[in-house]
């Protein structure tokens, strides 16, 4: 099996009003010195079988096409478990 994590964040130049609201709340609740908060999304994808090159390429494509919108977002993809060797 394999577990892949895709993190999606708004690009730096895109205003993040949710992050800004959270920033305000952190300050109100007693955390001083918060200079910025950005809110993103995380997808944890569990796959059966090993993560071969073809599936990895498909995942990369879908991370950029479905899971994120390249107009406003960036993504990073991390393979956290890949038990190809059958641990």
């Amino acid at each position, binding site marked *: 099996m394999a577990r892949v994590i895709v993190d999606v964040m708004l690009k730096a130049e*895109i*205003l993040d*009003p*949710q992050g800004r*609201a959270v920033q305000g709340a952190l300050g109100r609740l007693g955390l001083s010195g918060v200079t910025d908060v950005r809110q993103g999304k995380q997808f944890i994808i569990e796959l059966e079988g090993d993560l071969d090159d073809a599936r990895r390429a498909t995942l990369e494509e879908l991370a950029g096409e*479905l899971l994120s*919108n390249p*107009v*406003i977002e960036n993504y990073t993809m991390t393979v956290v478990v890949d038990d190809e060797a059958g641990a």
Partner: protein
Amino acid sequence: MSARIGVVTFPGSLDEADAARAVTIAGGEAVSLWHGDDDVKNVDAVLLPGGFSYGDYLRCGAIARFAPVMDTIIDAAHRGMPVFGICNGFQILCETHLLPGALTRNDHLHFVCRDQKLRIENTASAWTRDFTPGQEIVIPLKNGEGGYVADEDTLDRLEGDGRVIARYLDVNPNGSRRDIAGITNERGNVVGLMPHPEHAVESLTGPSTDGLIFFASALSSLMAGAGQ
């Protein structure tokens, strides 16, 4: 024979009945289309209505963009068929990349619902040709994620090419860059608009009947196309 304008229903669409009604009042024949069906029933134009397709999950319009009906509509749009996305429909058109940019959470985070004044700035598109240049109209606006964003180069290009079809007047209700309420593609057949012209086609229920002009424009551009 009146032009056939398809109105797509996605799971979570809300405004397809009003959109179909607007088409009928303008003098067209409204044809219901289903998201899961790749057949668009030989329509002459397509409307993507407002609502919350797929519950706005992932991003507004992100899942609707991959519905079977959209493959057919994207192909037809590339061939020049008039396509009009209102609100969620505009979001879907941006997700398909038929239109540049994206729509993001309102900068003030609140859902907004108001009668909104707009200035029509492009009267060459398939959906705005019956307006007079600079015409000011009032139609309802209701959105939570209506902030239009694009990079500066794209915004400059849209303005330089006259592809901003409508701009917010008096109030920018959602933080849209450069007060942009609607845009068109290079060819002028695909138009996206955040406010709702389909709710302003009868004096009994709308703040005006200004919205009707969008639908009448499509019918006259189809007529002009058929006459060529």
